[in-house]
């Protein structure tokens, strides 16, 4: 490690490799990960976060996008702006998070670690069947978005390393938001047709956390039309009220967006 500084209660370390970062996060108690800082620093500014120990990833690498043999691996500290060129639905989703300044600073890992109304990338990554790699005190783990969330991925002591997925045959992303920091995404639908022709659909904002829309997928697998699949989307949804949209609005818009997403991948 190149530097360790202590001030007030928070000590900041700046590991210079992924291995050092894993050690810093998993071997120190209560280590909070600082990547782009767009969510953590405001909490600190306003005195809301009791931060004991910070591991800053800015010198650790972990920000490469590697393509090989039809699959793509994205380092967790990759800025969202750099993810904009990823295939749909991941790229279009990444491009639309925050305004330009925030988009250039926030990272894909930080986004995946954040629950609604953030966590926009969970939807596309679910639809892509992405595999996440993370480390904690017990070692390294691999699993889907749901596994990562269930394992408490955003808690101190856990470091997300990268996300990997196969390049899809087709993908689409349809979202309810405008281009502004304040305009958090109320509802988004991601659709992916894999190399085997199977279609996967996922949504953010349709339920308290990102979810796959299995019933809609099953309709398509059984040869059903887009309209039938869209109508079936509600089965996996759990619409809720928040400051961005009402449950009724989410319920009404979901099938429309599912239909649009499926039309865009040529179903």
């Amino acid at each position, binding site marked *: 490690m190149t530097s360790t*500084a202590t*001030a*007030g209660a*928070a000590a*900041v370390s*700046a590991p210079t490799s992924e291995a050092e970062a894993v050690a810093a996060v998993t071997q120190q108690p209560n280590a909070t990960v*600082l990547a*782009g*800082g*767009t969510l953590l*620093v*405001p909490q*600190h*500014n*306003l005195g809301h976060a009791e*931060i004991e120990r*910070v591991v*800053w990833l*800015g010198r650790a690498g972990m920000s490469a996008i590697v393509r090989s043999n039809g699959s793509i691996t994205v380092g967790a500290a990759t800025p969202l702006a750099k993810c904009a060129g990823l295939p749909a639905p991941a790229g279009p989703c990444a491009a639309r998070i*925050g*305004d*330009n*300044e*925030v988009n*250039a*600073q926030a990272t894909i890992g930080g986004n995946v670690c954040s629950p609604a109304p953030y966590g926009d990338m969970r939807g596309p990554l679910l639809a892509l069947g992405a595999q996440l790699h993370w480390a904690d005190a017990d070692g390294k783990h691999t699993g889907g978005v749901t596994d990562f969330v269930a394992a408490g991925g955003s808690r101190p002591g856990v470091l997300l390393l990268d996300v990997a997925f196969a390049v899809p045959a087709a993908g689409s992303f349809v979202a309810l938001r*405008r*281009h*502004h*920091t*304040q305009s958090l995404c109320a509802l988004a639908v991601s659709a992916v047709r894999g190399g085997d022709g199977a279609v996967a659909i996922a949504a953010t904002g349709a339920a308290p956390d990102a979810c796959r829309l299995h019933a809609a997928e099953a309709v398509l697998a059984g040869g059903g039309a887009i309209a039938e699949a869209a109508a079936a989307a509600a089965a996996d949804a759990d619409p809720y009220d928040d400051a961005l949209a009402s449950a009724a609005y989410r319920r009404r818009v979901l099938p429309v967006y599912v239909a649009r997403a499926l039309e865009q991948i040529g179903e």
Partner: protein
Amino acid sequence: MDLTVNSVARTVQSPPLASLLTVLREELDITSPKAGCESGSCGACTVLIDGEPRRSCLTAVCAVDGAEVTTVEGLGTPEDLSRVQQAFIHHYAAQCGFCTDGLVVAATAYVSAGGSADTAAISDALAGHYCRCTGYVKIIEAVAAVARGDEFDIAATASSANNTYVTIAGAGS
């Protein structure tokens, strides 16, 4: 930690997790970046970090150790205004002025990167900046004018640095 701020080398003592905004304002007394929200939402604290527009309130100072930081003070002076600054005066794009520092910085980055005079592209580039006074029209006009290469006649406005108040006899009675 060492920073270059408006071409001057500075060493800072603030805690590593302090925001760059706090360091600029409270430690270095550079007050143009404004603490409008301290949560990345308003744009008033925007500065250039190695030439790229960033929210200083979202940036932990440890993350910019060794970087070059430019605030609006570093873009031009009353005696030597940049083209974006001239355009903001000419087009009346600053009203209360509180968002102006961040907007001039972001607009400078936009035109430096070859941004066009297309209003949709400009409003997209400035989407993270709130202005509560102008309704944005004059701001977008100003940035488009710079992108078009317009000339600005600010001979009259330059003398206004002396705070020449304009009074209208009988107005407001």
